[in-house]
């Protein structure tokens, strides 16, 4: 079990920092079209913010914030968003992963493609964040059941 960090400075700074890290992760996801960033980077940063919570505020705090089952479902949901967006193409008579079928009134051509990229980046971010958080939760919990030597 990862316990709460002893230093009050570490705990306070982490509590103050985590919302900004998560905001930055969202910025990285949504600004991926124009600057370095995108779903993979944003998702990894989002997962890192939860790992930071567990390291500084203890495992109990992370368990209070997220449930492992919910994280697993979120990971699956991310992959599903990506796959369904891609599958819209064949359903509407276009190639797989062709985002131009997302054309709405006033949004077509390159704009529809940019919209498609944004949707799948969000899917990737949710999927990656869920997967990495789940792996961390499982690895950190692993020692408890097995008993320490």
């Amino acid at each position, binding site marked *: 079990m990862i316990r709460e960090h002893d230093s009050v400075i570490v705990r306070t700074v982490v509590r103050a920092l985590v919302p900004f890290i998560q905001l930055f992760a969202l910025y990285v996801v949504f600004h991926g079209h124009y600057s370095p960033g*995108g779903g993979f980077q944003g998702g990894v940063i989002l997962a890192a913010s939860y790992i930071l919570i567990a390291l500084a505020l203890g495992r109990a705090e992370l368990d209070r914030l997220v449930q492992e089952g919910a994280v697993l479902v979120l990971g699956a949901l991310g992959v599903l968003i990506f796959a369904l967006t891609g599958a819209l193409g064949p359903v509407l008579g276009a190639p797989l992963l062709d985002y131009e079928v997302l054309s709405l009134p006033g949004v077509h051509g390159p704009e529809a493609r940019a919209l498609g990229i944004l949707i799948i980046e969000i899917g990737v971010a949710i999927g990656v964040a869920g997967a990495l958080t789940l792996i961390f939760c499982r690895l950190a919990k692993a020692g408890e059941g097995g008993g320490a030597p």
Partner: protein
Amino acid sequence: MTELLAYAAARYNYWVYILLMLIGFYAMVAHGNLLKKVIGMNIFQTAIILFFLSTSAKRGGTLPIVGPEALAGGVAPAQLMNPLPHALMLTAIVVMVATLGVALAVLVKIYRRYRSFEEDVILDRL
């Protein structure tokens, strides 16, 4: 002599990548500790990603982010890094860390059962 130096200057990057890969390979083959093998595998993978990414480098090139002039066809591809290896290796890195998680999960399972990471000890207790 100067020819040899120019030849080395154009290729020393590749030689360092090979060296890094061999360090990882040695750790995987010669070390008996399973965690050291995973560390070696990590170095091996990153060396390959380094090599793959080096194919994207262009001398005097800049980041593959274009401005509005691209819409008018004013892009000189020779001055921008090749974006294709970047996109491929970006996903490879995240897959690397996910598979690292699986490797470590297997290690934890092995430790629970055999109480050791040493190959010899595990083989004895098998």
